[in-house]
């Protein structure tokens, strides 16, 4: 793991600052994809499969083609003539997945034909007039039956990583103690030994069920190919415009330098807008064929079936422990129901579940086997937490069951198994290296805040009265900062204002505020003089994106690295401008303070230049400076624009403890949340207001999953 020198935290870090994004959004003046309107723009509507599994016998588009305002209709087979299978971002073998079904549909909602028409009403009318005849095939709904090849095989021509054909098993990944990931060789002696020694073993089948991410803004794309320039501009409701550009370029056979992707305001993502979807590729490819701008906006009914789902992992969990509650080993067989196809990160997400099986505990032996299986459902991919909440759920529920079996307070059981502060950095048996942690104070804070002992008394009394009250406690650990490198640039303009770019691409996280806080503190420039640009590949030259809890960890850090480079150069210019007096006080460039729009010598506040003056000097150029009787610092050229790429050497592992109390109404079955306490150790907080909002939103989605949300087939 590479280590980075811990920077001094800039002023403003930790301040509860109102968001700079908000004025436009609260006035309805943000521009989302559906607000983009181009001259001559036509609209797309998709005809989708209403069967889960079937052979396409015929598609009659004649009625649609004859309708007024319809420019073109394409079937999946026709689109295949000019658009290949979609790229994915995982290294495992995967069956081909075309943007639209070619001869077989494998989930309800899969697109089979597309209409290009003058407006969205006409496009919808025409799509509805398309008649598709299917030969229905048996639908594969149960992932365990699917593993046994029942009742059908989704991808008969596919051979998986194990060399197996005629199987619904997409891949199998072992993990944990005794597993050599490079060779996939497995030595089970440690885990077998742990279970042999165990005084208590708990075994449970658990389902972390399927969810729909459901951003308030559904997906949408505007693709505009300009034939004369051979250039494509794509507005996409995406979390990662640069990734859209790369994948588009690859599939369309265009240079990345010929494609500009703009993520305008994005109305939520939650992982589902990492993907580049069939509709995006189709819009771009048809725009290129027709030489016209095209818009496609997903409606809500489509979003529930055509945007990736999340979770849906079945776990067979065994936990081995001593009578004193020391966990000796954990065994997991995980079956991920990934739906019909592999999208960008479909195969990767459940592997993160494997990696979370140690939670916050020092478990001496962990052994997991992950089976990812195709079914006739919407493909799964990242959804808030992406594989990690699933793993935490399995471990924490097993811990609760163990506590019950041992008749031990669940808080006490956890306390006995924590990784201790002096053990960090800690390599878990599940394979992740945790950077830091100190779990007991977080547990104590949560217990105190919740009034744990009192809640237990209340529960016991209420149960005595016949009420059905449950009290739950769970710990979690997160993996933040995954996804590789990130990029930032910081430019001090001629007038001393700062334009910074980040390759992360916010959709509600407030980067324009928090990243400006970092730069403001670092360079001593007021926030109102700083702009943070994002989401447009023509302005932000490089980027990875916003996902995997990475923006502040990766994007914030690289922003400060780029800012630091500019600062170093400004220090050289400033020191040079200050000339002899600077040297007289024995100052070095490190002694320069950047504060309140001034660059001054520490301890000699009179010895200073304004930020603006120094910027002006840096843009003068050596020639003009010489003409004015000045010189440039040796080796310096004009301009103050610096950029940086940076890749974290590892991830960060923040954690927390949540406590909740619920009641089930005995008569109606209604579930009520009586109390919810969350204590989260986020590390350094840049803006507490924004962090509160993020935590609240995560809680609501977690509570939603626990109490009311599920995609049911």
């Amino acid at each position, binding site marked *: 793991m590479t280590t980075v020198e811990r920077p001094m935290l800039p002023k403003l*870090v*930790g*301040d*509860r600052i*109102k*968001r700079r*994004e*908000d*004025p436009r*959004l*609260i*006035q*309805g*003046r*943000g*521009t*989302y994809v*559906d*607000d983009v*309107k181009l001259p001559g723009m036509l609209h797309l509507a998709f005809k989708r499969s209403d069967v889960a599994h079937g052979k396409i016998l015929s598609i009659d588009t004649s009625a649609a083609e004859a309708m*007024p305002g319809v420019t073109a209709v394409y079937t999946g087979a026709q689109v295949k003539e000019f658009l290949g299978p979609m790229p994915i971002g995982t290294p495992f073998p995967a069956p081909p997945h075309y943007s639209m079904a070619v001869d077989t549909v494998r989930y309800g909602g899969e697109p089979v034909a597309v209409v290009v028409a003058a*407006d*969205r*009403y006409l496009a919808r*009318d025409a799509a509805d007039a398309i008649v598709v005849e299917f030969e229905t095939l048996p639908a594969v709904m149960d992932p365990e039956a699917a593993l046994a090849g029942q009742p059908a095989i989704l991808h008969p021509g596919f051979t998986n990583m194990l060399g197996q054909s005629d199987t619904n098993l997409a891949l199998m990944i072992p993990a944990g103690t005794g597993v050599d990931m490079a060779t996939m060789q497995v030595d089970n002696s440690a885990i077998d030994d742990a279970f042999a020694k165990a005084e208590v073993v708990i075994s449970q089948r658990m389902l972390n069920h399927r969810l729909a991410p*459901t*951003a*308030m*803004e*559904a997906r949408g794309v505007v693709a505009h190919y300009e034939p004369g320039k051979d250039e494509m501009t794509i507005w996409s409701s995406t979390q990662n415009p640069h990734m859209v550009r790369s994948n588009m370029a690859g599939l369309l056979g265009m240079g990345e330098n010929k494609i500009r992707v703009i993520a305008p*305001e*994005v*109305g*939520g993502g*939650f992982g589902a807008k990492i993907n580049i979807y069939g509709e995006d590729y189709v819009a771009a490819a048809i725009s290129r064929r027709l030489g016209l701008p095209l818009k496609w906006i997903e*409606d*809500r*009914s489509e979003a529930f079936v055509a945007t990736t789902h999340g979770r849906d992992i079945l776990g067979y969990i065994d936990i081995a422990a001593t009578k004193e509650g020391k966990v000796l080993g954990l065994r997991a067989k995980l079956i991920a129901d990934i739906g019909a196809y592999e999208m960008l990160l479909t195969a990767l997400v459940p592997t993160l579940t494997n990696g979370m099986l140690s939670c916050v505990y020092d478990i001496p032996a962990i052994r997991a086997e992950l089976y990812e299986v195709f079914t006739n459902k919407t493909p799964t991919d990242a959804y808030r937490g992406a594989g990690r909440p699933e793993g935490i759920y399995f471990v924490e529920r097993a811990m609760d069951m163990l506590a019950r079996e041992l008749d031990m307070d669940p808080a006490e059981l956890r306390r006995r198994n924590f990784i201790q502060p002096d053990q960090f950095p800690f390599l878990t048996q599940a394979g992740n290296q945790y950077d830091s942690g100190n779990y007991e104070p977080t547990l104590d804070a949560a217990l105190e805040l919740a009034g744990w002992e009192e809640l237990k008394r209340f529960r016991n009394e209420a149960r005595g009265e016949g009420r059905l009250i449950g009290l739950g406690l769970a710990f979690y650990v997160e993996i933040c900062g995954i996804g590789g490198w990130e990029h930032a640039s910081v430019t001090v303009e001629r007038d001393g204002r700062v334009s910074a770019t980040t390759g992360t691409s916010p*959709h*509600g*996280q*407030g980067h324009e505020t928090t990243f400006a806080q970092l730069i403001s503190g670092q360079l001593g420039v007021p926030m109102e003089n700083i702009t943070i640009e994002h989401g447009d590949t023509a302005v932000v030259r490089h980027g990875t994106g916003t996902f995997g809890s990475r923006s502040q960890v990766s994007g914030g850090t690289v922003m400060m690295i780029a800012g630091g480079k500019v600062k170093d150069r400004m220090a050289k210019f400033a020191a040079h401008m200050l000339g002899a007096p600077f040297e007289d006080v024995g100052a070095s460039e490190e002694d320069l303070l950047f504060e309140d729009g001034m660059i001054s010598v520490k301890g000699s506040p009179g010895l200073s230049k304004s930020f603006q003056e120094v910027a002006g000097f840096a843009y003068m150029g050596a020639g003009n400076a010489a003409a004015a009787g000045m010189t440039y610092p040796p080796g310096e050229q004009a301009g103050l624009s610096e950029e940086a790429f940076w890749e974290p050497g590892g991830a960060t592992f923040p954690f927390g403890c949540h406590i909740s109390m619920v009641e089930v109404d005995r008569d109606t079955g209604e579930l009520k949340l009586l109390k919810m306490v969350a204590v989260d150790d*986020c590390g350094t*907080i840049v803006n*507490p*207001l*924004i*962090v*509160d*909002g*993020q*935590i*609240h*939103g*995560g*809680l*609501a*989605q977690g509570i939603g999953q626990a109490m009311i949300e599920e995609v049911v087939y």
Partner: protein
Amino acid sequence: MSNRIPISVTVNGKVQEAEVEPRLLLAHFLRENLGLTGTHIGCDTTQCGACTVFVDGLSAKSCTVFAVQADGSDVMTIEGLAPEGALHPMQEGFWEEHGLQCGYCTPGMIMSGVSLLKENPNPTEQEIREGIAGNLCRCTGYQHIVNAIQNAAGQAVTAHVGAPAKKG
């Protein structure tokens, strides 16, 4: 489909005349015909409330109103809530209390908040939660929205929870 019906709708104080298809939704009329894109569409089915506007002073989900039904009406959208360059107290409240993240539900949420305070200027927290039950937000978990409406009502925020501010 080509039968178009003339309508006259006052939108944000300005009379707008148009000939529209009977099936054209008010939300699309505002967004496509008038370019007032602050009114968002989130569900197409009257559930999420992102498209909330006022029709003759009453809040209405404009994805479930035909433009022809608004003929002769007075419609106000988020763009008309405050004079140019100024913010309505409800908008101030949302800004102050971080009542939004991605901003997509926000215009509708603000319109519903304004509507609520017109009927009940001093609502309890529970009444606020009930008052915005027709508006969905996927980002905030609602607590900051409740705080925002309390702020706009001039009330003390009752559930200010969260991360501690910077330690000196």
